């Protein structure tokens, strides 16, 4: 039955492609290796002048926290901003904003213009903290549990279905 081998191989491959295409996955999205691990140590100056530095200790509040990497030059960040405001407001989750490779004045201007959803902010000017967290681009949002352990990473902007179908269920599970 050797002559059926090519047909079987082809059928298997087509099936594999079909499954992978229908699975609604994004091949650019890479699973974070940090899931289930404590958030990497960091200490960043705040965007608000005179405010204390943002450190890892700020994540261990006993309740879930979101950490959002953003930048004023990033268009998708604008798109998700409204949802961040809703998360901080209606859903009462503290959101911590880290300005990634962003001029501090421009980052402040961005928050003045669109509103500030962040309870605390940090400035990652050279992107070192972003590297520690495995950020591949902005925006990226991490869900941290009360003990400072990363539970979920949201790749790309929190817009449309991705808020209600991906981020919120993860958040509910923690709460």
């Amino acid at each position, binding site marked *: 039955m050797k*002559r059926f081998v*090519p047909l079987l191989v*082809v059928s298997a491959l087509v099936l594999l492609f*079909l499954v*992978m295409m229908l699975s609604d996955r994004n091949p650019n999205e890479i699973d974070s290796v940090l899931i289930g691990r404590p958030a990497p140590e960091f200490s960043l100056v705040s965007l608000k002048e005179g405010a204390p530095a943002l450190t890892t200790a700020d994540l261990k509040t006993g309740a879930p926290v979101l950490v959002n990497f953003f930048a004023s030059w990033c268009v998708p960040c604008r798109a998700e901003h409204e949802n961040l405001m809703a998360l901080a407001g209606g859903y009462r989750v503290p959101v911590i904003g880290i300005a990634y490779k962003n001029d501090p004045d421009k980052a402040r201007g961005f928050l003045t213009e669109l509103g500030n959803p962040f309870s605390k902010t940090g400035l990652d000017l050279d992107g070192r903290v972003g590297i520690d967290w495995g950020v591949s681009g902005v925006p990226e949002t991490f869900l941290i549990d009360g003990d400072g352990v990363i539970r979920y990473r949201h790749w790309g902007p929190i817009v449309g279905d991705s808020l209600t179908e991906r981020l919120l269920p993860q958040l509910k599970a923690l709460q």
Partner: protein
Amino acid sequence: MAGEIGHFSLILALAFALIGACVPHVGARRGDVRLMVLADRAVLAQFLMAVTAFAALTYAFVTSDFSVINVAANSHSLKPMLYKISGVWGNHEGSLLFWVLILTLFGALVSWRGKNLPLRFRSRVLAVQSLLVVGFLCFILFTSNPFFRLDPAPLEGNGLNPLLQDPGLAFHPPMLYLGYVGLSIAFSFAVAALLEGEVTPLWARWVRPWALLAWVFLTGGIALGSWWAYYELGWGGWWFWDPVENASFMPWLAATALLHSAIVVEKRDALKSWTILLAIIAFSFSLLGTFLVRSGVITSVHAFATDPARGIFILGFLGLVIGGSMALYAWRAPKLSPGGLFGIVSRESGLVLNNILLSTFAAVVLVGTLYPLFVEAAGAGQITVGPPFFEFAAMVLMSPLVVALGLGPLLAWKRGKLSRATQIAFPALVVALVAGTVLVWKTAGGYVMTAFGFGLALWLIASVLLEIAGRIKLWQAPKQALSGLAKITRAQWGMSLAHAGLGVMLLGITISEAFTSEQLLVMTPGDTATIAGYDFKFDGVAPVAGPNYTAVRGFFEVSESGAVLTTLMPEDRVYTNPPMNTTEAVIYPLVSGDLYAVVGEAAGAGRWSVRLYFKPLISGLWLGALMMMIGGLFSLSDRRLRIGMPTGKRSINNPATAKRKKWVVL
């Protein structure tokens, strides 16, 4: 207006393709000559319609008609003319139209050059080809129409991705497509042969020039792409085992195997069902390549903007074409009777070994490319398969191939003697071993692989030269050698040139990989860096304005022991539309290797980060590819291989096959 003409032509082409795909089969079944002849007309009509549609889209691009969505999304009025034209195939919709254009072009060529093919067989081939055209035209018309309008029309277009605005890349896709699509002819020939239930040496002789032509284009396309990566991306590399690079490499491997196995079919009437399978596989790999680029299943630097509907459509088409032909194969292959026999030590066996190694390598590349998908589908997380895997496989599988490649042409057809062949090749072996050993000794360990590759390359080149020397009896009768040289056929020259080309390429790869000098520096104007004996003096930077970009141009005065060679002027460009940053590496080729400079970001205080390389013998890579292409063309120009040759007595010397041949009777 042009847009509508183009759109309409595509619809007409689809109608012609549908006729061409069905009617000739009916004709072949009923033995109705008029219906069979229709295949030729339909193919010609498809070609004319495709040319019209393509010309209409080109016109829209050249005149910057932004009311056509495709033009607005991919062109810009300030773009240089060359890139306005190359923009036609630099996007998903246009590239598909280009694909159809070539598909119909090849159909028309078969119709034109294949007048001596038996009518019944030719009409089957053209009908299969028309069926492929139907599939692609439906894909264009239903999911990716390049002629849709935009109302109101924008004043300015979005521009073409600046990385693609490069002469190397203007010609890389057309070359590659000519190769990919050229394999469709081998595919159509294979399917037609399966439908007719018979493969003869004559079949191999017909299909080989087409496969060879496709192979030449594929070789050129891959080499151009690699050349583009080498100087445009500014990473200093030329091959990254990226999924889409692999997708172009797999058809090449299969086509190379096909070229060689077709010889065995022609000479010995053996390996028939394997050759048919290879012809199908080679084109299937081409289709797989288009699928991978457009479906978004795999991440790659080459991916077009993806759309799930398109992915599903092309997957369905892929499944139908490849699955259908494989099913046909499973059904009909037992009808293909095995033919002539040959000894274990013979040129044929050498070609079989070539096929085993090439197809194993193609399979390994396929598995490596899709492995991340398997793993993810199995729910075991995400992984990537990197160059070490492919490089290891290449080393393990291609080294024996190169060794065999040196010996194969020295073996006699049907029944050879290894001892005789080794006798001829012995000096080549000695040369290779000595050269390799010297290199090991000189660099004192650590370079075993380099020595090995170096030895292999020299082995191949030397044995090609010795084969020619043996052919003209240089040692036995040196006086008549020159006249012997004239007697060598073009096909033989072609083979020698292509094989030597592989040797030259291997030499380039080995030496440049092992001995590249590289420095990453931060330089202040006036600084001098020395790389591999060349002094690079940094003379600062200056701003430059191009037609659609602004750039920072760095100046490096290169001198060798005080004598100034050249000034290298690499650029760091910022394109305005779309905004994007590209590095334009600058390369100064010397006989001994390439000087290569890249200027990067400003490092503050008037300092600039720069990368300087000396890459010895890297041009061997492109030279080798060029030799392979020229070899292919030489072989193609051989009279014996030209299509449309009268059947000749050699090929019908077996009365048993001649009687079974339906088309001879016809």
